[in-house]
Structures are given as C-alpha cells and as structure tokens.
C-alpha cells in the first residue's frame, strides 16, 4: 500500500501532460472537510434563516409558508423603523467619539513623559472588562437620585441629569459607556500607526516653522489615516451589533427610546417567539451591515488611490 501511494505523486508529472482532467480529483478530497464545515456552519444557517423568514413560524404553533409577507410587515412596523434610526444614531456617535478621543489619546501617549507605560496600562483597562459587568456598574452610576454621576455634577453646580432614564438622553448616555470602553482600542491601533511614521517629515516641518496643529493636520493625520479607517471599521461593526451594554443597562428603554435593531430582534425572536419575523429582521440587519462595510471599504479604496496619486 505504502509503496503505491508514494509512487503515485512521483509518477504524476509525466502522466499529467496528456490527461489534465484527472488532476482536480486528486486535491478535491482535501477541500471537502473545509467545504463541509463552511456549508454546515455558515451557509446552512444562512439559508435556513432566509427560509424561516419566508414562513409564519411561531414557537408552539404550526409553520406556514407566507412568502414575503414578513418583509412587508417590516415596512409598516413603527418599532422596527424606530429601531433602525436608533441603530444609526447610536453607531455614528459611537464610531466618531472613540475615533476622535482615541486619536487624541494616542498622540498624547506617543510623547515621552514619566509614568507613560503605567498610565497607558491604566487607560486600556476599560477594554479588558466584561461589558455586562461594566453595564451594571454604569447603571448604578447613572441612577438619578443615588448615582455618583449626578453627585459629581452637583459639586460643580450642574443640576441633576436623568441619563439613561429619559428618552432624550438615553442614547448619548449609552454612547458614553461605549466610548469609555472602546476609546482605548482606537488608541492602540493609532499608536501602532504613529510608531511607523518616519521622523524626517517632522524634522523638516520644524525647520519650516510649522506649529503643532499644522504638524498634526498635514503630517500625522494623513499618515495615520489608513489606521483610522481600520479602527473605524472595527468600531462600526461592533457598534452596529452592540447588544450587551444596551440590554444590561436599559433593555431598550425608557419605552423603546434606545431599542436598536439588535435589541428588537432579540425581543421578537426570544421573547415573542416569532421566529419567522425575527429571521426577516436578521436578514435585513445583515444586509445593512454588509452595506455599511461596503461603503467603508469603498471609501478606503478611494483614499488609497488619492494617496498614491499625490505621491506620484
């Protein structure tokens, strides 16, 4: 047996020229395991989700095929439409704020000053904590009567705020938590970018008499742009599907003022047990994420081109 299997590959090159069609089967079996895995854990759930979304599928009741009516229901479901708006607002805010603050923090931590290593360690600690644990701590801090945030505000004479307990301030308050947790991630990515920038442009800028802002605006920022895009992309995908912080702090409330698509989807599928409708929401949600990612990738592609053009 062993002799045979060993001799086959050795003999193959000479035989291959006349019978090329025989080659694919020789590596095909090696692809099969990966293919099976991909089919079973990626393709199948997706096809099944789409199939469920075409059915009236409530736990405990028989299933009936209803075509696209679940999707029709989405267009006239005020709760879903509101959830889309909430998701967009939440995402935009929780991408922009960490990007701005993280870049600023990275520039600061790029300087050399005593205790830098220690402070950097402290700064990235929020990122290491469990979101649900963080959420519980913040919930207590947000409490309008007993929370520490209002106490701190009272020290500087600002009246008590309602934070997550009022529809108008709930999303910004949640974004605050998200920003607090994920600014360090942006900082780490940008810090990596800063380390890769050569020192020559800075030296020549110094000779030309550029001020700090000009150095940042015309040298640092363009050079770390690719890193900011990566950070932005990661943040965006995370923020769109953010669940734990919102669910643990407000469960989508007050009312439905902080109900994002993800939270609504969870309610529909696992509280109302309406799996068909829930699947339809999941499909639309997935398309939305793909669309957003595509826009980001397109923007990045364009940026790289202009960069090369300006280099040339």
């Amino acid at each position, binding site marked *: 047996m062993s002799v045979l299997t060993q001799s086959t590959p050795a003999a193959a090159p000479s035989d291959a020229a006349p019978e090329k069609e025989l080659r694919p089967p020789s590596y095909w079996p090696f692809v099969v395991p990966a293919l099976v895995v991909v089919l079973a854990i990626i393709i199948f759930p997706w096809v099944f989700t789409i199939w469920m979304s075409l059915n009236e599928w409530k*736990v405990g009741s*028989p299933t009936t095929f209803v075509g696209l009516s679940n999707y029709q229901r989405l267009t006239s479901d005020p709760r879903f439409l509101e959830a889309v708006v909430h998701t967009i607002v939440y995402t935009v805010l929780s991408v922009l704020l960490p990007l701005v603050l993280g870049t600023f923090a990275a520039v600061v931590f790029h300087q050399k000053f005593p205790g830098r290593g220690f402070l950097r360690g402290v700064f990235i600690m929020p990122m290491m904590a469990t979101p649900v644990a963080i959420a519980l701590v913040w919930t207590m801090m947000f409490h309008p*009567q007993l929370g520490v945030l209002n106490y701190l505000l009272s020290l500087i004479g600002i009246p008590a705020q309602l934070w997550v307990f009022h*529809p108008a301030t709930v999303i910004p308050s949640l974004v605050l938590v998200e920003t607090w947790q994920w600014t360090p991630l942006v900082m780490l990515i940008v810090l990596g970018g800063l380390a890769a920038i050569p020192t020559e442009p800075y030296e020549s800028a110094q000779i030309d008499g550029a001020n700090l802002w000009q150095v940042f605006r015309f040298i640092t920022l363009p050079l770390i742009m690719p890193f900011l895009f990566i950070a932005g992309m990661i943040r965006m995908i995370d923020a769109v599907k953010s669940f734990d912080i919102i669910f643990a702090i407000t469960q989508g409330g*007050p009312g439905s003022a902080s109900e994002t698509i993800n939270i609504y989807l969870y309610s529909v599928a*696992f*509280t109302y047990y309406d799996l068909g409708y829930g699947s339809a929401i999941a499909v639309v949600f997935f398309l939305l994420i793909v669309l957003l990612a595509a826009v980001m990738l397109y923007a990045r592609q364009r940026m790289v081109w202009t960069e090369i053009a300006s280099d040339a």
Partner: protein
Amino acid sequence: MVDTRISRRTLLTGTAAAGALSLTGLPARAEVNWKKYAGTKLEVILAKGPRGDNLQKNIKEFTDLTGIQVEAEQIPEQQQRQKVVIEFTSGRPSFDVVHLSYHVQKRQFEKAGWLADMTPFMKDPNLTAPDLVESDFSAAGLQYAKNDKGQMLSLPWSVDYFILYYNKELFEKKGVAVPKTLDEMVAAAEKLTDPKEGIYGFVGRGLRNANMAMWSNFFLDYGGEFLDAKGNILTDGPEAIAATKLYQTLLTKTAPPGVAGFNWMESMASFTQGRSAMWIDGVGWAPPLEDPAASRVVGKVGYTVVPAGPKGQYSSTYGDGIGIAAASKNKEAAYLLCQWAVSKQQGARLLQAGGGVPFRNSILGDPEVQKGVKTKEWLQSVIESGKISKLGLPVVIPVAEFRDIVGAALTATLSGADPAAELKKANDQYRPILERSEKT
C-alpha cells in the same frame, strides 16, 4: 433511617388531619405509596428565586421520603422561560418537572400541549395525599392551573399579590393618613412630595413591560376588563384612560426623577433609602425591606392593600406553578415531587421566609403557620389581598408583546404624551398581533 420515618410521619399527620376535614369522598384509609418510584431520577428546571431556593434547600427530605433522586437547576427567570420554550419545542425536553410563570406562559403552554394532565393523578389515592384537593387552592390558582376542559395541567405553587408599602415615619412627619382610595393616595402622595429634601410621595415601575403589572392594578380598580367576550383587547377604553391618567399623575408629579426607567429594583432602592413614601409592588419584598443590612426603613414600613378605585378594590394577581412535561417518562414520580413542592410543610416555609404565598388556603389560614410569620402586618395585607385578588394580565399567548406595547405607551405618557392617544396607538399595534396568534 430514623430521619426518613420522622419526615414521612410529620408529613402524613399533617395531611391526614386536613384530609379528614375535606369533603372529597376519597376513602380516608387510602395512603400514598411514597416509595413506589424509589430509584427514579428526576430533572427539574426552576426559575431563580425564593421558590427555587426553598425547593433545592429541602430536597433531601423529598429524597428521604420517596427514594427519588432529584437534579434541580435554577436559572434566572428570563433565561429560564426561554430555555424551557426552546427545549419543549425540540420535543425532547431535558427536564421532567418545570416551574412556570402563569401570567406569562399559561396560554402558550396549554395551546402547545407541553404539560401533562394531572387530573387522574389527583384522583388516585395511591398518589395523592388526602389533603391535596382542588378546592384547597384559591380561585385564582385554579383559574391559572386549569385549561378550558377543566384539566389540571400544573399545581399552583406561589401567588403574587400587589400591595401598598408605605413609610410610616414620613407619613407621621407630614400628618398624612394611610389612603383608602386612589384619590386619597394621589392627595397623600402630593402632600408627601418634597423635592428639595429629595423625598417623593410615590414610587413604582415606570419601565416598559414591567410597568404593566402595577398599572393593571389601577385599571382593575377603575373597572377595567382586559378582553371582551369575543376575545378582543380592551385597553384603550375609558377605564384604561382613567387608569393611565392616574399613573401619569403619580409618576410625573410625585415620583423621583428618572422613574420612567425604574423596575422593581430601582423602586425598591428608592423606598429602602427612605426617599419615597409609598410603593406599590408584588408582595414578596418584605424580607429586603426589613433587612438592616440592605434597608434604612427597617421597622418603619407599613403594609396594606392597594387603595380602592371608583369601580372596586382589587389586588393585581400573578403567580407561578409547577408542572410535568408531557414528554416525561417519569410522570408519576414527577407528580410526587410537584405535590411535595406545594405541600403544607414547604408552603409554610415559603410563607414564613416571606419568599412567596402558597395558593392553598389550608396553609395560609393555619394559625400555626401564621404564628411563624415575623411581620404580622404584612401577613394581614396578604390575607386581605387574597380576598380581592384578580388576574393582573390578560390570559393570551402574546403576553410579552402586550406588556411591551402597552407598557411603552405608558412610559411615553411619562414624558408628556396624551394617555388616550398613546393607548389607542398601542391598541392598534397590538390587535393584529393578538388576532394572528389566537386564531391560528
């Protein structure tokens, strides 16, 4: 061995005495063969809380009595509900005995046929102790446990009445009397509110979904009914609007800021800190309120029934039960466990710990059991509430949607929205959901 005999005898003497009084027509000599299913292994899924604790803590007694091994796990309520539904749907649940919330799951479980019928077991003197008879359960309990055909699908375990908690110290300071009607309650709340001092007259659930449990008590007091004879939802009528106006007034004018996001936990925090003078919620919160480590109002709390409305006085009622999975292979053994869980001994422990209120009148009304309850005023409010008990949610399948949609409307009124318009909108949104689910 000695242990076994003692616990069995204790249980049997208790049951025999009550059995002699009940007019069941069962042969008085019949005795339950507790050991018949010795060696069986049961899986139990419980919602985390005092009922689950009480069962797990004393389960050894059951095993000593019957020789049945019990594997019981407690899961937080929300997750337990989901896990149970998913496992039932799979057709092969991993558990024999299930702890269910009637006010959320009754219709769903009945319609899906997930629970075994206990009626024949209850009629079998070899399986059922003579004191366990239908008539011993309160009306609300039977309403919850029985389906349309009159079959007992579970045993009612613990009932939750809504009561009024009030801070006696704050009441005395302002010279306010304990309110007997809802109007008096609003007046009292306004008088007690002093934002400069950080004191508010009233606190209660403002959070969507959770708030329905409190609101429904006002709704019932205004004469509201959830469904008409044809099963249509009625929560945008004049009773609902009046109840919502009351809810809006109390929570916007006399409640702490941020109440729109309060569930029972935040409400309790405000009450135990002495920041709120009145609180309406479920009956089970006496232990934390009287715990010096967690509360600043120990010994100052008054307990009474929810004040009367213009059309009556009710206590919004919810409850949980314990049932057997229809797919279980050990139904008889599982039945013995359910029976033990609602037994006099277990029920007395639950009541005395303040962790729940048994549905069985023979336990609640027993002077011996009552003696063991620490806070007499609390017990009194429980007994009084039992007399005016009325189910606090419509018995339909999409309960969660109902609580979410109407609950969101209520929360909206707290930021100034018009009650009538919000309720109408919520009803329009909910009606098709109800129709879709009940008519398939």
